[in-house]
């Protein structure tokens, strides 16, 4: 039984309904307990931070680990990423990892 929390981007979200996943994005607007995350493939994801409010994002780019449900990502934790993070390459890495799932999930 795999305990994988796959790295995905916006376009793969529909395949992971109800699953725990990781998604990288640029931190956008805050809306109450929610934050908008701009993903590496130009999608927008609403992140519900209610379970992790005590910790603040410390960088402009983050990877959020959470459960994707009903068009919202319920954050469990996040990871700070450096400002020079290359979105494009990361995006293509995700596509390649989906082509070679055997070593990722």
């Amino acid at each position, binding site marked *: 039984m795999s305990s994988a929390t796959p790295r995905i981007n916006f376009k793969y979200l529909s395949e992971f309904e109800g699953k725990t996943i990781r998604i990288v994005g640029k931190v956008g607007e805050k809306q109450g307990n929610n934050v908008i995350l701009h993903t590496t493939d130009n999608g927008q994801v609403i992140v519900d931070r209610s379970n992790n409010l005590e910790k603040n994002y410390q960088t402009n780019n983050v990877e959020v680990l959470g459960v994707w449900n009903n068009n919202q990502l319920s954050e469990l934790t996040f990871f700070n990423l*450096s400002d020079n993070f*290359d979105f494009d390459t990361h995006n293509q890495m995700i596509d*390649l990892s989906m082509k070679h799932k055997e*070593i990722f999930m």
Partner: protein
Amino acid sequence: MTNNSNENVIVRTITPLTIRQIQLSTESEGNTFKIDNEFVMNVSLVGTVIKVLDGNTYTNYTIDDGTGQLKIREFKRQKQNNMEEEEEQQQQQQQQEEGGEGENKSKAKEIENAFENKYVRIIGNLKEYKNQKSFSVSKITEITDSNQITTHFLEAILVHLQRIKGTLKKEQTSSQNSQIKEEKNEIKKETNNNNNNNNNNNIITQQNTNQILGLALKDKALRLISSNQTSSGISLQELAKELKSTEEEIREIVDFFLDQGQIYITIDDEHFRSTD
């Protein structure tokens, strides 16, 4: 250099892996594991620290890299050739895992906090110990340039493909060749994009034209490196000049040989010597 006829296999390269690959590996010879049909000993992982257990002689980390979770241990006093000591430490560790005695909870919490919300790179040793997989850590460091996360997974994909599909060989059919080349070109393009800021659009066309010349070039490169007897070895620039090739092409060739363990770097990562 690997020695397949012996129980004690020695592998000098570091293999970038995902935890999933480690979880799936079952094959081993002696106490060395095989992944994608190749022996692996020294392994690099990139992931996050979920839990820390701190004991008197070791620190236990639970790592998650998005593909799975793995318990790894860092011995505090490294006595490399002392099997007895390691066994004693393993026993102590088992006791501690059961009884919690000698556990330093506050130190563990301190380490957990230090690594919270951060990615780490781990270099370690994968071997079999009492029929179980055991991962002992040589080095665990925080990743400050997050692009290293992307690069690590790209490298893991690349090495995985090279090992299961083989590197470019004359005997392969041309359709196999072009499929593998397409995937490797994609990966190499991403890895190169990630590693430097230059425009690498010409790499794919270069690789296509070098399909036939490629093998001859690799051979020449290895011969040049082997013939250099100076302690600092031959430089990337010299190789490019001698072989009338670009530094980028030479970089690919030396990376291949470094991976194979046929050459090593000397004063910096642009100087090489042969291991023979």
